[in-house]
């Protein structure tokens, strides 16, 4: 493998990991703050991709589709928190698993009714449509590079909000000790609602961003859900920094696994997970 191919693969792995981080950080935040496990997280990733395909084909603009799909996902998150998730806080995990499984079935069927089950592709915005010629045979799409940059900026924004703002302080305090935070007069119901809606929006955002580089298909949420789980298990639940490490590890393992060990690439990430479980059962950055 020459250096250019290696660099391209490295970039692919990092880009994959960054998207994975966006989706998984939503999952880990929702669990960290609300204490609710959401199996429907992948379904919102899928929904984000379908919404952006639909809106892009109606409006003809990727930017409008981006904003529209994100807004719909966020509002949907607020509505679901209000109607269902609020009542799940403090219930046992089994009930949460069943609720989110029910939601997946409903979302899948609604997607079927609204958008059908066809496989689609979304065109990237025209000004990001080209590709950069690396060598005579190799080129790299501009959109993929832009995707990396957008993901990095978003990841930075997530860390900034969590570490430097008052909102982030409340969120971190809530993850640390919910009862104490409530006793201090923090309006937790509001925080819960926006964290859940934000988590859903992050899942949808992942779907919206990858729509132009991969295909939009009904089962895309399932694969993403499992990968997000592996990321959270690797990084430690509730830890956004852990999710970043886990996501990059998986992105690189998967990309280079496909290059070097194509036969067993699909189980490599699980081997990685098994290794981490043996070494640190609570995840790399998880609390003991």
């Amino acid at each position: 493998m020459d250096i250019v191919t290696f660099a391209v693969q490295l970039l692919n792995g990092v880009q994959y990991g960054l998207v994975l981080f966006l989706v998984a950080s939503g999952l880990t935040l929702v669990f960290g703050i609300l204490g609710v496990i959401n199996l429907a997280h992948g379904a919102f990733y899928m929904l984000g991709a379908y919404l952006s395909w639909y809106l892009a084909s109606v409006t003809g603009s990727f930017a409008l589709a981006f904003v529209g799909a994100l807004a719909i996902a966020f509002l949907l998150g607020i509505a679901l928190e209000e109607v269902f998730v609020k009542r799940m806080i403090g219930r046992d995990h089994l009930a949460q698993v069943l609720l989110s499984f029910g939601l997946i079935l409903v979302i899948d069927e609604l997607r079927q009714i609204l958008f059908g089950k066809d496989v689609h592709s979304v065109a990237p915005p025209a000004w990001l449509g080209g590709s950069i010629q690396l060598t005579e045979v190799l080129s790299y799409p501009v959109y993929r590079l832009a995707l990396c940059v957008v993901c990095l900026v978003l990841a930075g924004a997530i860390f900034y909000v969590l570490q430097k703002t008052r909102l982030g302080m409340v969120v971190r305090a809530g993850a640390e000790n919910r009862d104490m935070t409530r006793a201090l007069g923090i309006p937790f119901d509001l925080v819960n609602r926006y964290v859940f809606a934000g988590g859903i929006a992050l899942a949808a955002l992942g779907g919206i961003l990858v729509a132009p580089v991969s295909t939009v298909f009904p089962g895309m949420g399932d694969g993403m859900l499992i990968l997000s789980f592996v990321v959270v298990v690797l990084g430690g639940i509730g830890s956004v920094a852990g999710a970043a490490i886990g996501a990059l590890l998986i992105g690189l393992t998967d990309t280079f696994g496909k290059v070097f060990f194509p036969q067993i690439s699909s189980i490599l990430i699980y081997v990685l997970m098994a290794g981490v479980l043996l070494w640190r059962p609570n995840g790399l950055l998880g609390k003991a």
Partner: protein
Amino acid sequence: MTSRLSHQTLLAALLLAAATALPFLAGDYYVQFAAKAILLAMLALSLNLVVGYGGLVSMCHAAFFGLAGYLLAFMTPESGGASIWLSLPVTLAVVAAVAAVIGVLSLRTRGVYFIMVTLAFGEMLFYLFHDTKIGGGSDGLYIYFKPEIALAGVTLVDLESHRSFYYVTLACLLGTAALVRALVGSPFGHALVAAKSNERRALSLGFPVFRVRLAAFVISAMIAALAGFFSAAQFGFIAPQVLGWHMSATALVMVVLGGLSSILGPIAGALALLGLEELLKSSFEQWKLVKGLIIIALVFALPGGLQQLLGLLLPERAKDEIKPAVNAVPEVAPHV
């Protein structure tokens, strides 16, 4: 307590009589449907051993169920059925070994981690069969002949006959139900339940919590494998979808629908859910939407499942007898 027991015994006896008489009363289609329901009831029963009694929400039991089907497919020769004396023990042993590895890793974690880790390992098996050529990829494998139950060349039971197949599955269900009942009533079962209600206390009392949980996990995986073995034989086909986590989640729904921590609960839940699905499939095109809404309603309106419903509908006197079983459903997260 004793009269509650006799209620349950009476109910069980009635169900058993109905199940035995079924092939003589109903047509072939219903006998096959009943065999399918019985096998899924076994899957739910196996899951309940770890979920209901052990408090461990496993999301990979469908993978054990499906893996058994693949093992049967691998061992079925092209010209005839596999001998059940070889194929069934090998299937159970392989699944037990796989479950032991997954169990050792997953049981290092607690609560929500356990859910995610078992789900991930279950999906690993799914992708193993889906992405590689070992089991025909996403197309799956056909099993053209049902396993043969023969001694010295004489066929004892012909599984190709729907009626015999049904009775074999019924016998398996009864056997596994008796096994689970015996396990739960034994010191082993008490240790399992003790670890669920308070792990730290169970540990300080000297219970080998990890080993007890691992044993329960492996035994329950083997019951799921027994069901999966016959299920694959019944359909003559095995595909990766059977191992997927949607199937595991459906089995969980069966367990909760019937009521946790009982033997009859998951069996009733499996029959109820399958009957419901059949009804929905014939009435709505978007039947999964309705199924999803029903699951959501179950979580909010009837967290104790049919057991709770029974408690609400029975007359006052009998209600008191049922009550302890309803209260056994944990209201707050038991995992800390």
